[in-house]
């Protein structure tokens, strides 16, 4: 049931954007400030990554549902559709650690850094 609807270009009022941005920044700042006041002492670090996660490497992913090739042969540009990379999101359920697989766009800064590091390590 594909329909093509000629859409009006949604007009966003610049005044509205400016107001909204101001409120958003204020909220961010207020959040930061309150944390600085609230937490005098540094928290203890509890960020161990479960060892069983350190296996396999970054997977390529083309579009949803298809399993991408591994390796870096294919460049990001030039091929239609955005390329995604598979990551494991680490979350806590109560005290249990859990990971869920997600796909993130390859151009996300999170991936970029990992890739650069990997590349650097390979060159060494």
């Amino acid at each position: 049931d594909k329909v093509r609807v000629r859409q009006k270009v949604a007009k966003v009022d610049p005044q509205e954007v400016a107001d909204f941005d101001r409120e958003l920044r204020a909220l961010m700042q207020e959040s930061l400030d309150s944390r600085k006041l609230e937490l005098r002492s540094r928290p203890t670090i509890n960020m161990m990554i479960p060892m069983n996660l350190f296996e396999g490497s970054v997977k390529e992913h083309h579009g949803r549902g298809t399993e991408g090739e591994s390796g870096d042969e294919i460049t990001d540009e030039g091929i239609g559709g955005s390329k995604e990379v598979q990551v494991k999101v680490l979350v806590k359920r109560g005290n249990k650690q859990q990971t869920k697989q997600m796909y993130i766009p390859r151009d996300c800064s999170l991936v970029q850094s990992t890739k650069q590091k990997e590349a650097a390590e390979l060159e060494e």
Partner: protein
Amino acid sequence: EDTGGDDEVFEYGKGDFTEHACRYCGVTNPACVVRCNVPSCRKWFCNSRGNTSGSHIVNHLVRAKHKEVCLHKDSPLGETILECYNCGCRNVFLLGFISATTESVVVLLCREPCLSVNALKDMNWDLSQWCPLIDDRCFLQWLLKVPSEQEQLRARQISAQQINKIEELWKTNPDATLEDLEKPGVDDEPQPVVPKYEDAYQYQNVFAPLIKLEADYDKMMKESQSKDSITIRWDIGLNKKRIAYFVFPKEDNEIRLVTGDELRLRYSGDAAHPSWQSVGHVIKLTAQEEVALELGASQGVPVDVNHGFSVDFVWKSTSFDRMQGAMKTFAVDETSVSGYIYHHLLGHEVEMQMVRNTLPRRFGAPGLPELNASQVFAVKSVLQKPISLIQGPPGTGKTVTSAAIVYHMAKQGQGQVLVCAPSNVAVDQLAEKISATGLKVVRLCAKSREAVSSPVEHLTLHYQVRHLDTSEKSELHKLQQLKDEQGELSSSDEKKYKALKRATEREISQSADVICCTCVGAGDPRLANFRFRQVLIDESTQSTEPECLIPLVLGVKQVVLVGDHCQLGPVIMCKKAARAGLAQSLFERLVMLGVKPIRLQVQYRMHPALSEFPSNSFYEGTLQNGVTVNERQSPGIDFPWPVPNRPMFFYVQMGQEEISASGTSYLNRTEAANVEKIVTTFLKSGVVPSQIGVITPYEGQRAYIVNYMSRNGALRQQLYKEIEVASVDSFQGREKDYIILSCVRSNEHQGIGFLNDPRRLNVALTRARYGIVILGNPKVLSKQPLWNGLLTHYKEHECLVEGPLNNLKQSMVQFQKPKKIYN
């Protein structure tokens, strides 16, 4: 149990979406929505920007100053409150992702203080690329998906102003809905209808209050219509139920009684009888205004009393509830109608789509008359388009064309076809024609109308249930018989009976090719689980938009609206709602939006002389005659037509109009007397009463004519009693061989009232097959341009006459200048 017995009650405005629908736009995709985790809020929002700079969830959090969210249980991460992996901070404005330096593992970490703890660097975490959860006023899209373009198009198009308003309202009333913002105050004029709507929510915001107004007015009118001192004539029906016959007087401005209506009959009691009351359904209305009421309970009826009863209306909200329900379904259920139809109905610019179906070689259907060229064209075009309009001027074979369309649709194997019309009469006619093609038809009647006799009795669901001849059904039949004999069943038997009956109804309905019912009937709970991809609505120009929507929201992909916007539209009783545009049909709005109706062009009803003026005035002269002068000559009928081959004349009347006894209507004695003379002349020349129809727009005149003819008629009283005297509106969709039209209005300075509506004039002029006589005052009527045109037409053809009926002479009466061009 009756029509609405098992319907849920809809309260408009309380937009009950799926719980996790975005409270701004209604998007429900679990991958796209999060719940605000503030305990007093807990509302869901999506990650689309819509018409604002920030996404809906970010908009909400900023405006409400809320800071925590939880993902949906069916989202990729499952039900998860977003929080810092290290310290548990839940403020989304502080959260962001970091990744492990070597592995593809990411976690949420707060910016303050955890991000600035150096120890993390030593633990394989890369802190340099902290990636905030909210970026560019939107949640990270890989975590919280942005709804697809299609999803966004079907969603509510909320503006920044509306967001600000609703957020403000939520501060004092957390359960408020966007509809509360739009709801007009008690004394406000309602929002008027418009050609285009942003989305189905805006559509609902406009129509729901109008339907509410009409419902309130209808309720007020009906409940105030109690009549006392009613005289009853008692009878017993074939089903052994008590039937009360009585005359229920009516007036112009009051609601007409129709079969299926519910009335309460009361007797206040006397020395020999206790007070008594019972509710029943109207099963018959006679031409003499006599009502037949079938009573629900047969115990304790004071059948030996005949006088002093009272009658009240029992108002039912069923039809209005179903309209409100259909509008809600249209908005929140994206499977209710196809995307194409959704956008088209709302007036969005949709790229033209064709229906890919192999066309039949012949466009006619078995059991129906041969189709003419314009009918074939209509059938062919309709089968290829997802939305089409067919305009059927009077007598052009709308029903046959519709039946042929339905026949071909049913043969395409896309499931059952749903066929509707606003009135029961039209549904019956269609059901009959469609059945003639050999298709299996089920005519679904409201439960309150099961006792009303129907010309297609054998097609009705209740009849088929009773007469289904299989051994498995013997149990049901046994219980049915018991129920008929005893009037009621034991509660366990009743339960069993109901279950069996429901199962049988479903079985029969599911095996049909076509289901026929009224538009309101399409909201019957018995069809709740049915889906219809193809829907045809006849007489669609006589129903309001929300009424038309009821049959459409059952999954329609292809819709055919048949009607004629040059004839009378839906009757709206509440002036406020009518002024706001509730009387405009969906058909008309689609015409305004540029959908070109396919017009049927050959009329088979009127003598060619009678069709000439309507064709030129209402159909740009396109109406062709499918009947010849010879076929419309009535041999042996000796009637003093002024021009022998033109069976029509305008009979000049100068008698004054009067206010009727009720004070709310008009009558005209001279016209009434002349109507009697004309009727008598017809009868004497060999015309039978059933061939004659007397049309008058005023109830006062209608009652006066009926009365006058039966008292002063020169022939047997019974003959006059058999002649139908009725309003223009009640003649719509019907025909008579001879029509006498009494215009009534005759005054110096006032207007011509009902006759001002060109559509009413069109209907009045196009009911006759063989001949028409119009009685009126040309001096008054000629002020209106259309009437001026009609009078000129009659004069030019030497059919404007005066004098005694047996010596008619051309009238030289001067016309007035028409006021302005009618548009």
